[in-house]
């Protein structure tokens, strides 16, 4: 068993699935919801305020029998930019994935323009990423560019 998986035993090991590590402590629930794990029917283990050498405190999520595509993983880039996804098969780490800021961000953000159609009718938001660092996004509808990010409630 590798060092990584020993540490993860704080939140009991999984045989097959994905471990999402290095989540900021205040966004664990958001990550859960963005990845749809709040509605996932198999086992999901959540640990928060765990000690982290790199970040002080961190959150961790383990989802049994759940594997993600890179495009899904990228959806959490805004809330957990330093997260690592560890793919587990037969209790062994088979792959590590990192999040990248995607080209487009759908539904999870709110447009800051109060006069945008997305704030007036039930319309899913869509943003184009104009710059990644520092992050600058543009609303598909009102075309406003913004640097301060607000999550949809």
């Amino acid at each position: 068993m590798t060092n990584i998986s020993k540490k993860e035993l704080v939140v009991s090991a999984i045989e097959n699935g994905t471990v999402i590590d290095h989540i900021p402590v205040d966004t664990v629930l958001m990550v859960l919801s963005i990845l749809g794990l709040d509605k996932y029917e198999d086992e999901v283990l959540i640990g928060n305020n765990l000690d982290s050498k790199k970040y002080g405190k961190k959150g961790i999520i383990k989802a049994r029998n759940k594997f993600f595509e890179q495009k899904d993983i990228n959806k959490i880039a805004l809330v957990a930019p330093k997260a690592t996804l560890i793919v587990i098969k037969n209790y062994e780490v088979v792959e590590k994935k990192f999040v990248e800021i995607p080209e487009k961000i759908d539904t999870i953000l709110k447009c800051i323009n109060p006069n945008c159609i997305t704030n007036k009718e039930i319309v899913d938001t869509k943003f184009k990423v104009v710059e990644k660092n520092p992050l600058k996004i543009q609303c598909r509808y009102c075309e406003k560019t913004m640097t301060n990010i607000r999550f949809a409630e």
Partner: protein
Amino acid sequence: MNLKGKNLISISDYNKQEYLEILRLAKEFEENPKQEILKNKVVASIFFEPSTRTRLSFESAASMLGAKVIGFSNPSATSQSKGESLHDTIKMLSAYVDIIVMRHSIEGAARYAAEVASVPLINAGDGANQHPTQCMLDLYSILKTQNTLENLNITLVGDLKYGRTVHSLVQAMCNFNATFHLVSPTELKLPSSVKMHIKEANLKYEQYTNLEDVIPFSDIIYMTRIQRERFSDPLEYEKVKDSYILDAAMLKGCKETMRILHPLPRVNEIATDVDKTPYAYYFQQARNGVYVRQALMTAILGVK
């Protein structure tokens, strides 16, 4: 080139070749504006916000081509006033018409309506966001007065911060190697998101506060109204409202071929003594809107 079925929501939806195609068609319509080529077509002209110039220009353009125009110019007379969503209004309307021309006070309403509609949609203005047909008629006016769109000195004056026509025109002229001269009070400078287009196109711009400095070398002076409704503080408006007033005396020494454009309505930013000079082009500019809109509707309907 095939523009059939292509929405026009934002000026960036079309590329340089597509602009030129629309301008070529507009010239054809200017020479022969009354043709019955849209005889079996129904155009919806739906204005959720009052507009005289744009609405009448569209409706006149469609009527001259023999199309039937249905719609409204007052949203209080529609089911929106009963609480119907834009989504449902557009879904229903799509079943009745061949093309929709829409103005709305909410930004992004046009892009959203185009996603919902099953027929093509032309944005006739969505709040402070886009007004692409105004931009097309500005391009047509520049082309007509200068015989080219390439390598021009374009001077933009007044409210460069909130003026949506200015933002679109800068974006479009970035395709034609323009040099931009930006004249505005400090409070109303062109936003950096618009300047970004100029930088991306590797073009030059200069910012000025004094209009007279740029008159001698301008090919086009695009005047704008400082819009009272954009200011939350009336004192701020009072401070800048009379910043730039162009009068005939200031035009001594300008290029012979220079022309003054204005999206209208004007308040006092162009003195009436300019109207009689050969440089005034704003009233012809408004008339060009009809031909450009004829070009757009026929191209999008696949008739031309």
